[in-house]
């Protein structure tokens, strides 16, 4: 860092130095600009500190800003020299020009050097009472900066108390910044609090009914960003009674018409929070009715904003499926939408699918299935299956569309369609057997494990109806050891099913597959299952029948992808990252790898019952997940070799692409570490055990998450089974 202290005699820094000390004003200024340019690209110009500092005293505001910019970057590395700047700062903070005063106080807060902080108190004190609102609003934020650096100084000097007074300022922007600063301080205090040193009382920002009044008044006059800060605050406020909630809702309602999308979403957040306490049906109806149009408008904004809005709409629909009932067409994908927007729109369309619009949706989905983006095509086909499962009356048409798609003979289309057909068979067991020949005809097309496994499952399930079932399965038995594990598992189960249904024709295959699986296979899962079948078959054929041919519970389409308690929490976070990821904040921000500290603190802290409940749930889920950890690791690790490198990116992808079932699980971080959603679902489903035959087809398939893929064997036979050992 200090290499250049020894003043080199040549090179760029040498030239800059001589220019900085030039007698000509223009030359000096030009040199400062070059220094800033070097700083931006990452060259070390810290050695020029004293020379740049000399140019601080100037009438030229632009030059002053540049010097300040330089100081902000290097103050930390040259703490002893910063002192030289203090005089100018203090003088500037007293300048007749309010812009200069504000600039000085803004910069001083950013210097982050211990030494200068002590000189900050006096000018800050003065600026907080400045007659000019521009200076006051800048000073407000400076208090937050000070608190971030040296909390005790901000508290001892009474700055925080002063901020609280400034909430009543006559100027709306000052009010907004005071609120912003107080919120920031509150957050910092909570974050830094530990067991031994709890957050200082003064830093707590409690919104009293008096403050509420000020907020509501300032709301109408504030700048757009100020409005977001105020609305966020309103969402935190706990109304004393229903009447107050009503009042807040009525006052916030006009904000739906604001041109800034983040204001609209912040207003939606306030509504969702305070609507919980409303009992007047007509008012709730009115709010919901007024909420829909601005949400739809957000869908035609810039793609990034649009995506944030779509993720939030997805969340809102889980709580209130009726909001956008008649608006499905808005979510039709445009050919040139970016992929992340398309996938999200698809998801929302499924949520909005009803009997009356399913035909339009199906023809739309069919259209998407012919696009270029493979990911999107697959999701579209999956969506057709979800339609069929959600709306029973449409299942026939969905199957028809799938058949048409299979006939295109495009490899990935066929494979995905086969996977989807399996789900439809699960839901409507004996309705569409006529399709099976077409599926079997495409056997050779399949090269993806999931598609293969699906088709094998179908063959096993309907073995009695397929004449050449043993022949078809025989192919897979022959290549048994070359297949992926999930295909092996399915082959094993399907052959055993075939044996139960048509013992005479399958004798040979079944003994061959059992022998290969137990002797030559290197997956313990496959081996274990083979042993179980073997023993079952040899000890008690009737018990074997009860276990292997048991009727599976039908699958349904999950209405929500997040548990109710989390959903409520996320609705209070509309517009934020948490609502975009559909995950509580502590799963992705937090100091520890596992956000357990944060959760713990929440229990300790003041917050309400819901959070306590959630936290407890989290801990329980955490313990469960921990037990599971040992054993899912192997499976997930093999199937998703993305490994550690893709860790956190996977969080993003999965939330963009698939609906990941999230739970209040502090181990979510860890879960995504293994690239599999199976860990994140311990609250929904019992452990995916290797001995529940069809279930093991699912656990490592995150994309199948929306269909509730619990273990298909009812728990009763599973217990029986354990009793057998």
């Amino acid at each position, binding site marked *: 860092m200090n290499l250049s202290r020894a003043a080199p005699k040549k090179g760029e820094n040498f030239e800059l130095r001589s220019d900085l000390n030039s007698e000509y004003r223009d030359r000096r200024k030009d040199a400062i600009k070059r220094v*800033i*340019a070097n700083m*931006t690209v990452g060259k070390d110009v810290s050695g020029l500190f004293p020379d740049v500092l000399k140019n601080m005293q100037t*009438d*030229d505001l632009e030059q002053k*800003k540049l010097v300040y*910019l330089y100081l902000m970057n290097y103050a930390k590395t040259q703490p002893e020299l910063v002192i030289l700047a203090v005089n100018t700062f203090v003088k500037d903070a007293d300048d007749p020009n*309010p*812009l200069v005063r*504000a600039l000085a106080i*803004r910069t001083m807060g*950013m210097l982050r050097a211990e030494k200068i902080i002590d000189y900050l108190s006096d000018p800050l004190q003065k600026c907080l009472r400045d007659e000019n*609102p*521009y*200076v*006051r*609003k*800048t000073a407000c*934020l400076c208090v937050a900066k000070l608190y971030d650096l040296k909390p005790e100084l901000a508290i001892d000097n009474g700055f925080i108390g002063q901020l609280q007074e400034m909430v009543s300022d006559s100027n709306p*922007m*000052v009010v907004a910044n005071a609120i*912003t600063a107080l919120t*920031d301080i509150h957050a910092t205090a909570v974050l830094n609090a530990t067991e031994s040193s709890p957050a200082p009382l003064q830093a707590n920002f409690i919104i009293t009914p008096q403050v509420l009044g000020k907020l509501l008044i300032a709301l109408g006059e504030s*700048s*757009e*960003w100020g409005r*977001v800060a105020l609305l966020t605050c309103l969402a935190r406020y706990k109304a004393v009674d229903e009447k107050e909630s009503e009042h807040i809702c009525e006052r916030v309602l*006009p904000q739906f*018409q*604001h*041109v*800034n*999308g*983040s204001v609209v979403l*912040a207003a939606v957040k306030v509504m969702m929070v305070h609507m919980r306490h409303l009992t007047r049906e007509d008012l709730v109806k009115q709010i919901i009715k007024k909420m829909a*149009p601005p949400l*739809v*408008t957000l869908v035609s904004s*810039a793609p*990034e904003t649009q995506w944030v809005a779509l993720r939030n709409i997805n969340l809102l629909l889980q709580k209130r499926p009726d909001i956008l009932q008649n608006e499905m067409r*808005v979510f*039709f994908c*445009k*050919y*040139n939408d970016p992929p*992340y927007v398309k996938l999200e729109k698809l998801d929302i369309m499924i949520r909005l699918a009803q009997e009356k619009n399913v035909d339009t949706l199906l023809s739309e989905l069919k259209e998407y299935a012919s696009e270029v983006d493979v990911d999107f095509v697959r999701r579209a086909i999956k969506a057709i299956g979800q339609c069929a499962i959600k709306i029973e009356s449409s299942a026939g048409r969905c199957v028809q569309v799938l058949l048409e798609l299979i006939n*295109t*003979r*495009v490899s990935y289309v066929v494979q995905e369609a086969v996977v989807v057909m399996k789900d439809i068979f699960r839901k409507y067991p004996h309705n569409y057997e006529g399709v099976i020949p077409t599926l079997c005809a495409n056997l050779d097309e399949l090269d993806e494990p999931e598609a293969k496994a699906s088709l094998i499952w179908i063959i096993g399930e309907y073995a009695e109806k397929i004449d050449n079932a043993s022949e078809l399965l025989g192919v897979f038995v022959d290549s048994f050891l070359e297949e992926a594990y999930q295909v092996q598992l399915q082959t094993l189960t399907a052959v055993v099913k075939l044996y139960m249904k048509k013992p005479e024709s399958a004798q040979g295959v079944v003994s061959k597959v059992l022998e290969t699986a137990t002797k030559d296979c290197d997956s313990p899962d496959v081996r274990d299952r083979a042993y179980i079948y073997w023993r079952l078959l040899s000890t008690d054929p009737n018990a074997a029948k009860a276990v292997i041919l048991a009727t599976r519970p039908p699958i349904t389409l999950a209405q929500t992808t997040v548990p109710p308690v989390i959903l409520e929490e996320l609705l209070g*976070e509309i517009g*934020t*990252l948490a609502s975009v990821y559909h995950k509580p*904040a502590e799963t992705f*921000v*937090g100091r520890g790898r596992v956000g357990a500290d944060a959760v713990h603190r929440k229990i300790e802290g003041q917050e309400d019952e819901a959070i306590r409940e959630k936290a407890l749930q989290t801990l329980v889920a955490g313990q469960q997940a921990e037990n599971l950890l040992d054993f899912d690791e192997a499976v997930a690790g093999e199937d998703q070799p993305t490994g550690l490198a893709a860790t*956190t990116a996977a*969080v*993003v*992808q999965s939330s963009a*692409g698939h609906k990941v079932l999230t739970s209040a699980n502090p181990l979510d971080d860890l879960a995504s570490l293994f690239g599999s959603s199976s860990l994140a679902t311990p609250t929904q489903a019992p452990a995916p055990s290797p001995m529940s035959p069809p279930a093991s087809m699912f656990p490592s398939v995150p994309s199948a998450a929306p269909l509730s893929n619990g273990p298909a064997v009812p728990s009763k036979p599973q217990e029986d089974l354990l009793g057998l050992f």
Partner: protein
Amino acid sequence: MISGFFIFNQKGEVLISRLYRTDLKRSVADVFRVQVVSNTDVRSPIITLGSTSFFHVRVANVYVLAVTKCNTNAALVFEFIYRFISIAKSYFGKLDEEAVKNNFVMIYELIDEILDFGYPQNSEIETLKHYITSESVRSETALRDDSKIAAQTTGSTSWRRTGIRYKKNEAFVDVVEVVHLLMSASGTVLRADVTGQVLMRAYLTGMPECKFGLNDKVVLQNARRAEGETYEAGTVELEDAQFHQCVRLNMFDTDRSITFIPPDGEFELMRYRAESSVHLPLRIQPIVTEVGKTHVDYTIAVKANFNTKLSATEVVIRIPTPLNTTQVDCKSPAGKAKYVPAENLIRWQIPRIQGGSEVTLSATASLTQTTDRKPWQRPPIDVDFQVLMFTASGLLVRYLKVYEKSGYNSVKWVRYLTKANGSYQIRF
């Protein structure tokens, strides 16, 4: 809150870097370079690594990036990035690598003004232009102005300074509508709606109080009820309306009246959306047949479906061709049609189509043999156009009243424009 703000070029070099909070190191720039710039398959505009989140928007040949470390308001961050982009465009005419490099000092000045400690501050373009200017040396006389600006920036009408004078008081209103159309191959309209903007250029003296009236169905219905008269056609039903911050939202909420004190100069007064009875200015009827595996025949008819006195201009119709097209033979009586191999489409450009008239293009594309058995995907036909003095939604400005203490007369001008830009799609 935003911890850091960066601009990168396409190679991933840092053009602008500004840290607002201490929780971040300058080296995050490298992480972004690896994760986004050099990654060809970016599937999300937000990327979270550990607890650091990267929000990026790509404009021309630069990336604008905001980095945060907490559970930030994502909607606000993107709104802010887009605001920065529009400020930059307004200041420098464009936002690309060249503009950033030439104006980096000004950009630092701007982002320091509009973002403090990671919280967005005043970002009204017109106000910023008063005190962040390229002229550098400031005389003492500027001092008084600065005080005034500073007071105004934070006031309840932060968008307008006092003491504005014009010899001639004028206000220009532009209604610009973008038509979104999605038509299925069978000719049914899947989606047709209009997003409109009311742009205003106000050159008015003092603190004028403006009242703006549209043929809004709700307003006119209320008026009819009040006056007991029947008001028949000519109204438009707005699904939604959004206003510039100068409009009093409370007033709109109670009686749908649009009242405001306008900023000086150009601004977007209102944005709206209309879905019912959208009048589609151009009807496209494509007949595309694949003749065996060697040819595709096109007959594309375009009918201008509006008043004969008006005309559509700058019409560009993009008709996709199969990927294995070798050449295309185009015949059209109007405009120029040309095959663009790089984009796999026929680009048919028609400078002007008179209302009520119809033009037809016939073309034949020859294909080479291919082993690819995947059928042609047929992306939609895409149409760009402009029609002046026409609104697809039927929206009309009924009045713009200006009241000012001094009681001057003002002149108002209204223009209408309907256009489509990549949003008018016809499947075939």
